[in-house]
């Protein structure tokens, strides 16, 4: 768990500082130096792509974009999921039954295909990617938060708040939500890799982040086209993407076992 966290932190720092230290930028093309292998000449640490652009800076930019999309999308799903789950759990009764039935119905939807449809129908912009990914991932959060809220609802401090006349919304957001923090943190850690997967899947298919912007998925896609002569264009972003996903999953699993002893193996 500590190792995963440290690796993630190192990658994040590198992605933030890296482009700043490099003499190259992500846009400049150089047709005299296309597909140069990784090395120190011209400070192309990760080599260059088929347009002669520096792959180190592009990869760092890709990590930034991938992580940014994932974190923001996870926050979107967090806000929706916590609100929805807390309301369903706290209000209870028929409202709860209807709300959770709706979640069950959504669970059966093949979301990824609807997201592709969404990306086809509308201009592919950043905002839409956030919304689309957030819309997929809030379901789990809503279920978990609802379960937790139901057990919190019966506690004395909630009764006390009700007695002094705090409104329902006040109780949900001021008294219940802060107590959900632990479990929510765990599930955000597990949501981030899922969001990364969706974003890079879309970008890999050419439906996500558009040129000249890039993300790890888009870089892997570009690498696939060049891999026979220039394997580094594929292997570097692929390795980094795999490493990031692995670390997030390890971290999430470890946190879950830590916070939720019942689910520990």
């Amino acid at each position, binding site marked *: 768990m500590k190792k995963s966290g440290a690796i993630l932190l190192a990658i994040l720092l590198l992605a933030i500082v890296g482009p700043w230290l490099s003499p190259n930028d992500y846009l400049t093309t150089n047709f005299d130096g296309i597909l140069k292998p990784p090395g120190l000449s011209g400070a192309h640490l990760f080599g260059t792509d088929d347009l002669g652009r520096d792959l180190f800076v592009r990869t760092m930019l890709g990590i930034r974009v991938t992580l940014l999309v994932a974190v923001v999308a996870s926050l979107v799903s967090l806000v929706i999921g916590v609100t929805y789950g807390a309301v369903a759990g706290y209000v209870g009764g028929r409202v709860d039954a209807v709300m959770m039935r709706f979640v069950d119905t959504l669970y059966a939807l093949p979301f990824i295909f609807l997201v592709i449809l969404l990306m086809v129908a*509308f201009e592919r912009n950043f905002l839409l990617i956030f919304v689309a990914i957030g819309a997929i991932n809030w379901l789990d959060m809503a279920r978990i938060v609802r379960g937790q809220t139901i057990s919190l609802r019966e506690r004395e401090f909630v009764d006390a708040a009700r007695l002094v006349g705090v409104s329902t919304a006040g109780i949900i957001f001021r008294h219940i939500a802060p107590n959900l923090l632990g479990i929510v943190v765990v599930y955000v850690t597990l949501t981030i890799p899922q969001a990364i997967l969706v974003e890079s899947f879309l970008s890999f298919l050419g439906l996500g982040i558009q040129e000249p912007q890039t993300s790890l998925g888009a870089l892997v896609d570009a690498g696939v086209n060049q891999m026979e002569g220039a394997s580094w264009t594929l292997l570097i972003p692929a390795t980094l993407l795999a490493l990031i996903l692995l670390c997030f999953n390890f971290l999430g699993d470890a946190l879950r076992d830590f916070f939720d002893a019942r689910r520990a193996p």
Partner: protein
Amino acid sequence: MLRYTLLRLLGAIPTLLLVIVLAFLMVHAAPGGPFDDERALPAEVAEKIEEAYHLDEPLPQQFMRYLSGLVRGDLGPSYGYRDRTVDEVIGFGFPVSLQLGALAMLLALVVGVGCGTVAALRQDSLLDRAVMAFAMTGISIPVFVVAPVLVLLLAVKLQWLPAGWSGETGAARYFLPVITLALPQIAYIARLTRASMIDVLSSDFIRTARAQGLGTKAIIRHHALKPAMLPVLSYMGPAIAAILTGSVVVEEVFGIPGLGQFFVRAALNRDYTLVLGIVIFYAALIILLNLIVDILYGVIDPRVRQR
């Protein structure tokens, strides 16, 4: 049992309808028409095209037309492939995808359950840890990373297996696509099997069986396997959806003319009707297979039927 089956069937209908409405609305809310080119068409031509595809009608009427076609199994014409209907494209691409998907699912079940059971029997051994580390890797690394890396390694560098699909015949061309598709599912199923097998093996009826002197093999085969398979069975629904999603990537990487490849092409070409048709087809397929899994679950575990 009949009541349970009927209830499940009824529950699937609103989901399917929701998909159809959502998908239809998304396509029709898109800014710009499907025939907007860089070069503007003459007004009369544009009008004629709109008339031919009924795009001049009000939206509810278009939806009812689409729905009534759908009920008859007619998904309409493709905007991109002007001489083909969506049905024809699906009929052409789906059998290929089905072959790959079914093979991958079979492989995932056999290997996943096998690995999971072995790991459970030797809990905390080196083998167990190796299986679990492999499972974590398999779950984390996406298909679109595994597929090209395997191609680079086994097909381009070592040249053991063919990299592509077209021009190849025989079983060798199935190897890489099927393995790539199955890998994440093997990982999930191995993890699930291990966890539930450990759970089952520590229950009372297994202790009784052991006390009666049954060997490990007999206990696993006759007593532990069936209850331990229940979580795996309920994972089949998500697994099918994941394999369908994965097939989109795998077909693109290996150049397999399956439905997934048509889907990606259609998405990139903005072939609205084809994308819409394939999304609805995939959705119906996933919902149907989920339904079958649900009903199977009811058959195997009578406790579920009561609820």
